[in-house]
């Protein structure tokens, strides 16, 4: 790695001040699993590293009045072992578990995964399906916005120089919303997603209510699938509806051909994974409701 | 460290660590722990048996691996040792118009820079000597080295590489082995043909065999380029003494050959070269010849210091040998009972930019291609061609995994077409003790049928399927 300066931030205010002072020449070190690789490959040549990795206040995972808060520095490993998340959102546990391997999951953070903003990020889809909000600290104080508005393009977020992502919130209205995460990679361990899907919906008298489907790795950023969502909303829950939603989602995505897979294959996977995510969310709904499956999906 | 921090640290320790901390001898200069001793016995039984053969004896080196005490190259260090890095071409085919190393040489901390023109005999290879240590006139594949730097730190060496300016005149590259066989294809090593070796095995009369066959199967199979991925990257250290004697510590599985190659490239008598093969962190065929060693030796000579070079993981892929992709055409004639009567095979091996172990791979693939089967009529021919890609060479199996994929895939298709069980058709055709091989060799200690039956029994092949 080329030489750079290093400051360990004492707290969020200190970090924000450092970022304000150094602007684009500074880089924030959270987990480092992406940043240090990119510096080694000379993607970035920062003058200063602002190390926030030891800010414990950004690791808190807790339910508050407005929803479930996950601190931006919560590592994937911490998300996996959080009893709160295990109980409420197994999809987030699965998404975290699907990232890298134990060693990188112990370093990599949720905030870092979102900020790196690669289209195949595994943290994005399930959170987007749960309509998560993000809290940003900047020179002008804190502000909150939907997670979807954070993503601008591949490796591009809407954060301004000097902004720091500090918190991710799943809003209160969705705290009991069943959600599922599906991922397909080129191998089982340490896989990058060819496609990943997050899905969530309420079961309302046997019908889909407020279905949310988010797709990863098939567009410049993680994206929602509005046509598939609209198709499902209010519709009776069943295997054919889920399959059709999958087919619709596949038409909405904008996957690319690359050396990992063709766009056509990615579309096939979207259809299958969306269907499976819906099936799994429904199975979870039934488990949460503590009742037997009233309508088997297949 | 202040006292407050110390208290915090203490709290973090578990009991085990506290006990070990109490045992800490303050006089030790570094954190390296004292070595475990006296050691507990290695698994006593197996290693102490005086009928040694057949014992599940543990490995003495396995203990050192597990303790982290094995000294691989990168764990060795000598006073004043420099770190070498090699600039890679990054272009598949080109003429080198100019190499300017002056800015790199002027950098503080850079003690030596080397280009291909300074290498006494700039070519090596186990059969054809077609591979330059550092390319000087032409680039043959993107992973070629064009210059090498030795500096006091790896960081400085890396920065020096960026300051080396190389001007290329891009030339047409040929990447597809079939295209490379055509007369009008660009020549990788002009003016020579891209086909640089071939082999033919002929036995019986295939045309007669096909005429007698009830069914003919014709298929094409192809395989990919594969990297060895030894966990330890290629690494070496070069050092000279005042008598002009060179010592190389290297990750090489063939030190005798390596010494020959070093003597040739450096024009040194063999008596003045010592090659020490350290414990190699994985080979699989990928560490059977020299790579950067002559460059390290010359950098060391220039700088008057020991020089270490360790490939990056990227270089492991781009600049070391790989497994041959092979395009395999199989034509097989069988009787209605499922006996193979004739087999005609044509193999085209993608040799990449240099020969390396291609001749060996070609030969083994060609001989083994008919499979472990009694076939009276065989033609097997194989060609290996240059392309402007990473060179292919020795890798676990020398072409055998590729041809096995072909002959065993086709075997299942034959079984299916004839309504036979895949196991039975193999047992019907497999070699027996004394069977002649495709080259006419009378085979001994043949147990292919025993392995078929053993694996089938273990698997439960003959049990009813659920």
């Amino acid at each position, binding site marked *: 790695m080329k030489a750079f300066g290093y400051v360990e931030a004492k707290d969020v205010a200190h970090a924000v001040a450092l970022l304000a002072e150094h602007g684009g020449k500074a880089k924030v070190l959270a987990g480092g699993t992406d940043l240090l690789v990119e510096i080694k490959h000379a993607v970035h040549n920062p003058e200063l590293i602002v190390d926030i990795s030891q800010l414990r206040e950004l690791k808190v995972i807790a339910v508050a009045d407005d929803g479930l808060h996950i601190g931006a520095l919560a590592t994937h490993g911490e998300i996996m072992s959080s009893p709160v998340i295990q109980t409420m959102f197994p999809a987030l546990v699965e998404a975290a578990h699907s990232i890298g391997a134990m060693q990188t999951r112990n370093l990599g953070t949720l905030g870092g995964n979102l900020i790196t903003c690669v289209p195949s990020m595994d943290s994005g889809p399930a959170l987007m399906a749960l309509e998560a909000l993000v809290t940003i600290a900047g020179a002008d104080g804190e502000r909150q916005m939907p997670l979807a508005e954070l993503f601008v393009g591949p490796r591009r977020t809407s954060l301004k120089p000097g902004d720091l992502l500090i918190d991710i919130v799943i809003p209160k209205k969705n705290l009991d919303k069943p959600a599922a995460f599906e991922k397909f990679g080129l191998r089982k361990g340490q896989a990058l997603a060819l496609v990943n899907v997050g899905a969530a919906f309420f079961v309302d008298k046997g019908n889909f209510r407020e279905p949310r489907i988010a797709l990863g790795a098939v567009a410049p950023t993680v994206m929602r699938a509005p046509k598939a969502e609209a198709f499902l909303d209010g519709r009776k829950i069943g295997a054919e509806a889920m399959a059709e939603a999958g087919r619709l989602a596949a038409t909405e995505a904008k996957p690319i051909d690359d050396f990992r897979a063709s766009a056509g294959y990615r579309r096939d996977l979207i259809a299958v994974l969306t269907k499976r995510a819906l099936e799994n969310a429904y199975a979870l709904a039934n488990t949460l409701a503590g009742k037997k499956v009233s309508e088997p999906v297949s | 460290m202040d006292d407050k921090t110390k208290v915090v640290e203490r709290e973090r320790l578990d009991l085990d660590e506290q006990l070990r901390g109490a045992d800490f001898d303050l006089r030790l200069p570094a954190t390296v722990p004292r070595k475990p001793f006296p050691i507990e016995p290695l698994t006593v039984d197996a290693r102490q048996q005086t009928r040694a053969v057949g014992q599940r004896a543990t490995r003495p080196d396995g203990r050192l691996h597990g303790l982290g005490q094995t000294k691989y190259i990168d764990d060795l260090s000598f006073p004043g040792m420099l770190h070498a890095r090699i600039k890679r071409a990054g272009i598949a085919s080109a003429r080198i118009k100019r190499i300017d190393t002056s800015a790199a040489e002027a950098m503080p901390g850079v003690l030596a820079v080397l280009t291909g023109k300074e290498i006494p005999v700039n070519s090596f290879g186990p059969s054809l000597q077609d591979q330059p240590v550092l390319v000087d006139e032409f680039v043959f594949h993107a992973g070629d080295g064009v210059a090498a730097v030795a500096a006091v730190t790896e960081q400085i060496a890396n920065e020096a590489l960026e300051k080396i300016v190389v001007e290329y005149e891009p030339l047409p590259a040929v990447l597809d082995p079939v295209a490379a066989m055509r007369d009008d294809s660009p020549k990788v090593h002009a003016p020579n043909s891209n086909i640089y070796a071939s082999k033919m095995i002929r036995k019986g009369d295939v045309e007669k065999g096909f005429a007698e066959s009830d069914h003919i199967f014709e298929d094409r199979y192809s395989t990919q380029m594969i990297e060895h991925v030894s966990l330890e990257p290629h690494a070496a250290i070069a050092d000279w003494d005042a008598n002009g004697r060179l010592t190389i510590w290297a990750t090489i599985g063939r030190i005798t050959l390596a010494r020959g190659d070093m003597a040739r490239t450096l024009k040194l008598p063999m008596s003045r070269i010592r090659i020490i093969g350290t414990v190699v962190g994985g080979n699989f065929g990928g560490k059977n010849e020299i790579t950067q060693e002559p460059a390290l030796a010359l950098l060391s000579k220039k700088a008057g210091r020991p020089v270490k070079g360790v490939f990056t*993981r990227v270089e492991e892929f781009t600049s070391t040998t790989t497994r041959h992709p092979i395009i395999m055409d199989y034509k097989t004639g069988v009787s209605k009972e499922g006996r193979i009567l004739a087999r005609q095979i044509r193999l085209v091996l993608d040799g990449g930019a240099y020969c390396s172990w291609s001749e060996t791979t070609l030969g083994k693939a060609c001989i083994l291609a008919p499979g472990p089967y009694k076939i009276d009529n065989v033609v097997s021919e194989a060609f290996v061609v240059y392309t402007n890609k990473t060179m292919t060479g020795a890798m676990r199996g020398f072409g055998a995994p590729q041809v096995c994929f072909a002959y065993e895939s086709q075997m299942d298709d034959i079984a299916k077409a004839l309504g036979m069980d895949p196991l039975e058709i193999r047992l019907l055709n497999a070699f027996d003790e004394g069977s002649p091989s495709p080259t006419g060799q009378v085979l001994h200690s043949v147990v292919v049928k025993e392995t078929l039956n053993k694996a089938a029994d273990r698997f439960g092949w003959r049990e009813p399927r659920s």
Partner: protein
Amino acid sequence: MIDVTIFVNGQTRDATVAPETTLLTLLREHLHLTGAKLGCDVGDCGACTVVVDGMAVNSCLMLAGQVNGRSVTTIEGLATRDRLHPIQKAFEDSGALQCGFCGPGAIMATKALLDEKSDPDVQDIRDALSGSLCRCTGYTKMIEAVQEAARVLRSEARNQITHART
């Protein structure tokens, strides 16, 4: 240059390093602990795995500054003078290491797993080893070794409890 104090294998160590120094470089070049290996330098292969505050991490993906004031255990910290760690013993007895280059990393990953979960099933073990690439063994004997080490460690823990009671 930055000053770093780390608690490594039970000993407090100070070092003054360039800010871009990774934990792996700090261990290997400044503290002469060469057990952790550099296999890819970007967190894919796991040969550099060490345990920081109880968690297995890729030491090539941490800066030295990040471990200031923290506790690090490396492969050199497992054995005592008179005894191999049960994980090391199990790896040796099972023939789980061939070229050995991935070994220190795989053993440290195993240490983190078994500290967390004393009775892992095969899937847990495969999951814990998935960050340690190995080209020699197919992971088969490594998985057997982890199971054996877990068995020994559980039995030692039981004996310690019994010993404490008597």
